[in-house]
């Protein structure tokens, strides 16, 4: 008996080891299901503060390319202004710009302050939070493509689950067709993904554009996702298997937009 107590006294650090491991394991598990607890909020504020400091130094050197990208985007947006269109008498055309159309999405601009692409679950940290009106489950896009879905929000920051998350599905379609498929990231390369569930009788060509379907509550329709680079469909399968290249380079994320679906609540109620 004394031998046993002596043993435990000498090896008592094993209990500490087990305790610390159990605690960290609990944190990992809790991390995947918790939402918006004080703990995470505090961690995000510290993490966000640190990285926005780093980002400030880095972004100074990127000002030129950032300006160019924004100017380009401005040009595209200007094309869409009412003043860029002439009035037409054709009833079908005019209805496109009719007041009958109600605004469905509004956009909150944000800057990426930290971003990962090398893990199997990648996260993006944004410098906009609750105080800017960001909420959980909002979509995040850039002018080039989709980025992800907001997972957690603290007062000044938000974390986004990147499209680069293993087995993550984005509802998508080939532009020009109405068949809905899904884009799945397989966890290896930051610029490649698979597209599945498109029926195999549809003819697909390399270079075809892939865009969001608009069937998810978060992403608006028609946001670019990527282009088809390889058709890997076999003859027996009923569905295409396509390799696509993302249109957004996820290593160079900077300015993003958080999409607020004005009818999100209403739509969610309906889907219950």
């Amino acid at each position: 008996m004394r031998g046993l107590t002596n043993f435990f006294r000498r090896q008592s650090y094993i209990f500490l080891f087990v305790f610390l491991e159990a605690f960290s394991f609990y944190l990992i598990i809790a991390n995947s299901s918790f939402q918006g607890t004080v703990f995470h909020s505090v961690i995000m504020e510290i993490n966000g503060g640190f990285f926005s400091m780093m980002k400030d130094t880095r972004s100074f050197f990127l000002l030129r390319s950032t300006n160019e990208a924004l100017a380009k985007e401005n040009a595209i947006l200007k094309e869409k202004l009412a003043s860029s269109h002439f009035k037409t008498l054709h009833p079908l055309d005019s209805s496109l710009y009719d007041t009958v159309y109600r605004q469905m999405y509004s956009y909150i601009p944000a800057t990426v302050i930290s971003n990962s692409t090398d893990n199997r679950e990648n996260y993006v940290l944004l410098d906009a939070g609750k105080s800017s009106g960001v909420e959980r489950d909002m979509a995040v896009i850039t002018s080039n493509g989709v980025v992800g879905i907001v997972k957690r929000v603290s007062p000044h920051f938000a974390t986004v689950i990147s499209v680069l998350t293993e087995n993550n599905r984005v509802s998508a379609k080939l532009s020009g067709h109405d068949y809905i498929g899904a884009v799945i990231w397989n966890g290896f390369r930051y610029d490649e993904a698979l597209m599945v569930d498109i029926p195999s009788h549809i003819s697909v060509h390399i270079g075809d554009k892939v865009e969001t379907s608009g069937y998810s509550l978060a992403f608006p329709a028609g946001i670019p996702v990527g282009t088809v680079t390889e058709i890997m469909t076999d003859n027996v399968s009923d569905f295409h298997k396509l390799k696509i290249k993302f249109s957004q380079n996820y290593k160079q994320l900077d300015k993003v937009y958080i999409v607020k679906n004005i009818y999100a609540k209403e739509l969610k109620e309906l889907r219950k």
Partner: protein
Amino acid sequence: MILRNILRFFILAFVQGAILSQISLPFNLHIFLYIYFILLLPYQTPPWLLLSLGFASGAVVDILAGVAGLFAFSATLAAFTRIIFIRAAKINDLKNIRFRHFFFYTFWVCLTHSAAIFMLDAFSFSNFGYTLFLIISSTILSTILIVFCNAVFAPKNIHETF
């Protein structure tokens, strides 16, 4: 002595969080340098303190990496491996350790650390070959970097003889 270790702790945590976690290497390779802190803690450090410091260093890197628990778990395991290895290999002084011993010491601690990181990160056995590749590659990279750092910053600690 204590001050030196504290300073090393913050420098390594900063380098890990601000530089090594930010750069991307081909094939999604990762380098974990901050466990060098656990490796270099004095020989006399009691086990409970080693484990607690391992946990603390992991928690700091966790915050910088924006995750919860992943690095804390792995760094505690690394500290535990250190305790076991020092007992098993009957090392009785870290200041005058032989190169061969230091190499294997580093290797085993890196191996358990990266194994924990990548298995927890994947959290499944799908694509296990890929997980295994990540574990081995990052173990080798981290070991090389740590041995290299040790040769540069603390050359006197190690006997060159095998």
